């Protein structure tokens, strides 16, 4: 089934971005509105396609559009083709929907920035790239979007790049992503070498014939790609710094959409992972590690955005874990992705509005008792909070508990460890999110007198409200009658045989709730009962110190990659001059030297010349003698 509307999903925002770029300052007046309109219209197209989809039965809901033959050399045939199926439509709606809300929010948030127009053209560009990522019908098309969003995030993180640290953060993000991209491109190479195709359909069709080894290789490479893009261990280090970007960016790119691309990639490649258990297990393990890693960092952060970033990392860890659990997990991974999209974006926008009110103060130790000053922000943020810690009946409860449950149900050591990790993560999540809420909205005010906290304009709180609605309702909607699971069934093909339930869902939920309550309790003990010092106490345990230093992730990279790399580079630069070029110059110098030495045979004394001739003659005789013997 084909549809020629798909291209418009991408074309509209791309067009907007291009116009704003070319028009430059001339479009300062209307640029932001234009961009928002285009994003919204793209959302409209998405909705229309969604409605059409609903009108068709499960099997043939997917639509494709083939634009032209992009690269065609020998057997390497890649079309510029788009594919919209049940999986990608979820993303399309999330991207365009949340995206549009954040456009609107940014109109107000960025109103004082001289370069707002440029900001919006970036945003549009991001929307287009992200849509291409989820709509591309082959790994190579996905790759284009994949790096496109990378570029967008680079540009947006470095939006205020006159600040060197921000510029560095942007560079860091790009490079880390490139490492992931390396994985993706290798995956594509392997799949072409083994399967002779790189289109999703093709790979899906032939995956069965390929050897497990090569499929595992592909899977691991895809996982590398995912870790890069989704800030998973060990490529997670860039996400925290990425908070240098304007808060709407953090909400859209580094919470709701781009960072979840890794999850999309893995779920999209279910046919590979299902056939490569090792790779799949690795995915689950990475997810588990990261969800704890992020959670731990989250506990120690005083910068509200960094705390949220850490929690994003952790939540995506849940998704990856879910995706790593195989057919039963894919749907829940996606579900958590969507719900997370709502509540995390909402909370980021909330954080943004707090910063807006506190003239860009990000240190939570300088907040406190803000709830009466910005009630709406508090309300929306609170709902998001309840959602993320997984309190029923909020969205997080449904999605996260499902993942924990499925994890336990893997059975055996695997089940216990993964499930346990997820459970522990839930508790920690509850702790640090409570900490955030308490430090920000509750307790005594700790900001100095210059700050005049105030509620943000409607332009900003309306999107927050809408997202809050999402974070309340979405979970219920998705799980009501297994709607999302069934919806995604044609894509991810859950295997019918039912797992031996190690634990009943109810049990899992109760355990989870208990864990959450413990987390909340400790947090309240620590931060509500005693009042929070304005400067972070130094006399803390080594663990806290390490956690504050992001578990030494940067120190590690620096020690293992950066410094040796720099040494190597300097060494090579010297070696190039000294050895290679030196060798060349040496030969030249040697020749000249020989010349000036031989020159001295020309003594100027005629008798020595005569001597030469005489010796020459004798030499000739001697030689000719030898020759004839």
């Amino acid at each position, binding site marked *: 089934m084909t549809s020629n509307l798909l291209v418009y999903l991408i074309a509209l925002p791309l067009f907007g971005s291009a116009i704003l770029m070319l028009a430059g300052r001339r479009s300062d007046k209307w640029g932001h509105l234009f961009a928002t309109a285009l994003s919204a219209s793209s959302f409209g197209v998405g909705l229309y396609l969604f409605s059409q989809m609903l009108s068709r039965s499960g099997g043939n809901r997917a639509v494709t559009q083939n634009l*032209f*033959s*992009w*690269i*065609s*050399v*020998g*057997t*390497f045939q890649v079309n*510029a083709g788009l594919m919209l199926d049940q999986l990608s439509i979820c993303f399309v709606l999330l991207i365009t929907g949340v995206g549009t809300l954040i456009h609107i929010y940014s109109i107000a948030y960025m109103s004082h920035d001289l370069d707002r127009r440029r900001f919006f053209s970036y945003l549009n560009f991001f929307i287009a790239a992200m849509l291409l990522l989820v709509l591309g019908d082959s790994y*190579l098309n996905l*790759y*284009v979007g*994949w*790096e*496109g969003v990378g*570029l967008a995030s680079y540009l947006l993180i*470095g939006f205020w*790049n*006159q*600040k*060197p640290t921000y*510029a*560095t953060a942007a*560079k860091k993000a*790009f*490079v880390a992503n*490139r*490492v992931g*991209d*390396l994985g993706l*491109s*290798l995956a*594509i*190479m*392997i799949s*072409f*070498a*083994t*399967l*002779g*195709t790189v289109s999703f359909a093709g790979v899906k069709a*032939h995956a069965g*014939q*390929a*050897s497990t080894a*090569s499929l595992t290789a592909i899977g691991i490479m895809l996982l590398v790609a995912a870790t890069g893009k989704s800030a998973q261990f060990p490529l997670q280090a860039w996400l925290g710094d990425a908070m240098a970007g304007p808060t709407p960016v953090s909400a859209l790119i580094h919470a709701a959409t781009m960072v979840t691309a890794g999850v999309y990639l893995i779920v999209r490649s279910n046919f590979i992972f299902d056939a490569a258990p090792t790779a799949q297990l690795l995915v689950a393990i990475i997810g588990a590690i990261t969800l704890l890693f992020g959670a731990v960092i989250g506990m120690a952060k005083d910068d509200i955005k960094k705390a949220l970033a850490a929690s994003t990392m952790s939540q995506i860890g849940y998704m990856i874990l879910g995706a790593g659990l195989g057919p039963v997990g894919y749907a829940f991974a996606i579900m958590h992705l969507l719900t997370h999209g709502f509540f995390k974006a909402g909370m980021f926008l909330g954080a943004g509005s707090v910063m807006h009110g506190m003239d860009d103060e990000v240190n939570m130790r300088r907040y406190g008792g803000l709830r009466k000053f910005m009630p709406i922000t508090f309300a929306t943020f609170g709902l998001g909070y309840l959602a993320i810690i997984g309190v029923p009946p909020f969205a997080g409860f449904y999605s996260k508990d499902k993942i924990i449950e499925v994890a336990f149900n893997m059975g055996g050591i695997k089940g216990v460890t993964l499930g346990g990790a997820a459970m522990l993560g839930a508790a920690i999540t509850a702790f640090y999110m409570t900490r955030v809420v308490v430090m920000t909205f509750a307790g005594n005010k700790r900001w100095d007198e210059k700050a005049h906290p105030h509620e943000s304009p409607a332009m900003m709180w309306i999107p927050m409200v809408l997202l809050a609605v999402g974070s309340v309702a979405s979970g219920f909607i998705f799980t009501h009658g297994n709607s999302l699971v069934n919806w995604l069934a044609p894509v991810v093909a859950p295997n019918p045989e039912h797992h031996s339930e190690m634990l009943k869902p109810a049990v899992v939920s109760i355990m989870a709730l208990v864990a959450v309550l413990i987390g909340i309790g400790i947090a309240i003990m620590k931060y509500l009962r005693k009042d929070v010092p304005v400067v972070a106490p130094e006399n803390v345990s080594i663990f806290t110190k390490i956690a504050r230093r992001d578990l030494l992730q940067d120190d590690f990279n620096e020690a293992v990659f950066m410094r040796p790399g720099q040494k*190597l*580079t*300097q060494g*090579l*630069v010297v070696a*190039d001059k000294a050895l*290679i*070029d030196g060798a*060349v110059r040496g030969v*030249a110098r040697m020749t000249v030297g020989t010349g000036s030495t031989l020159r001295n045979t020309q003594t100027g004394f005629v008798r020595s010349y005569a001597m030469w001739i005489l010796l020459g003659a004798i030499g000739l005789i001697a030689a000719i003698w030898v020759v004839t013997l």
Partner: protein
Amino acid sequence: MNSANWLTSLGVLPLLGAVLISVLPKANDLLVKRVALATTLVVAGTAIAMATQFQRDNVNFQFVETHSWIPSLGINYAVGVDGIALVLILLSVLLAPIVVLAGWNEAVGGRWSVKTFYVLMLVLETMMIGVFASTDVFLFYVFFEAMLVPVYFLIGGYGTGARSAAAVKFLIYSLFGGLLMLASIIALYVLSGEQGGHTFDINALAHLHMSSMTQNVLFIGFFIAFAIKAPVWPFHTWLPDAAEAATPGTSVLLLGVLDKVGTFGMIRYCLTLFPHATKTFTPVILVLAVISIIYGAFLAIGQTDFKRLIAFTSISHFGFIMMGIFAMTSQGHSGATLYMFNHGFSTAALFLVAGWMSSRRGSSRIADFGGLQRVTPVMAWVFFFAGMSSLALPGLSSFVSEFLVLVGTYTRYPVAAVIGAFGIVLAALYILIPVQRALHGPVTEGNEHLLDLNLREKVAIAPVIAVILFLGFYPSPLLRVINPAAAHSIAQAGYSDPLPSIDKAGK
């Protein structure tokens, strides 16, 4: 126009322009420049017209033209193009007007008059066309060597810094390689004489009977010449010096076109004439290629000067091209040829902007710049764009070629491809580090009053950007021309694409 003499006319046009310029009054620089620009535009137009006549699926040389030149030595003036040569000729003639327009004032302050500069330029253009078009090995050699002279004077006469030293280094290096090739050519000549009549016709020589020993020796003669031309580690040290000293325009032609003669020669001569030797040496060459990729990237990261940095990035890119060529798969081959074209444009973009930056700032040291994005947004953007195309961002032309090379190599030589792929990461570093230093951060002093691009410069760079974008999304026009030729040259070398492993398993 009679299709037989397309190439000759193409080659003669710049010469006519040169003659015309040389009779113009010395004083009137503007007129000289205009004539030069007009000439190059006419040539470009003619070339495009010719390209439309090219039959894509015909793998034989087209627009063939043969006149006996030195019959007593069996030397002919024989020209003709296949898809690969055609693409490279297009590259040369398209870059020429851009270079003229972009470097509108770069001839000023040279040793000699502006006139001389453009005469040399146009003569060089003729040579470039000739070197790609000739199908007679001797003729090729003549162009190959004669081409050095104008470049030598362009670098030494109009460059900056240690220009004459750089020029000499360039010339000696190239001459040395050329002479080794001459030895091989002489051997070919003698062999052809022993096997029925002296000839230099590439097709005839391809059927020469040679012992594998002979093949290897002669192959080395050719290969070193080409390896020096397309600087391959460890023959590269002339390039950074030359690129640093030469004017931006010259550098564009040097890196963008002249160095391609090396890689082109590998395809056209090494592969066609010495298939067995090619097989023998492929492992060594792949190692060299991979080293070039990584080594070039690392040195690029380590450079403190824009021009040297770009030079080293090119060394890295030439590693990719060579890898693609000697991977001996249709993807690798087409990718390599496409890479040559794309690299021409992305380097052109990088070098022209770098040239504008340094001419405004009076220095090409990266450290002297800072915060340009605030002062000169357009220039900064163009540089950033050029950088992105240099690091092969998907959606830009160079991505297509780089990925084809990698995929094509992987199917036959996975290890080389995997190591080479790390160039992708390093590329991000060698582009983003200078971008951050020069464009981002606060405006450092000395840069507050730099002027942004003027209209002429915008007009000059616009087509480059357009081409890079267009080919990024729609490379087919070129690929359709390249593919048959590439497939042909692989078949000639006695290779065929490896099958996907599942099919192999099936067999």
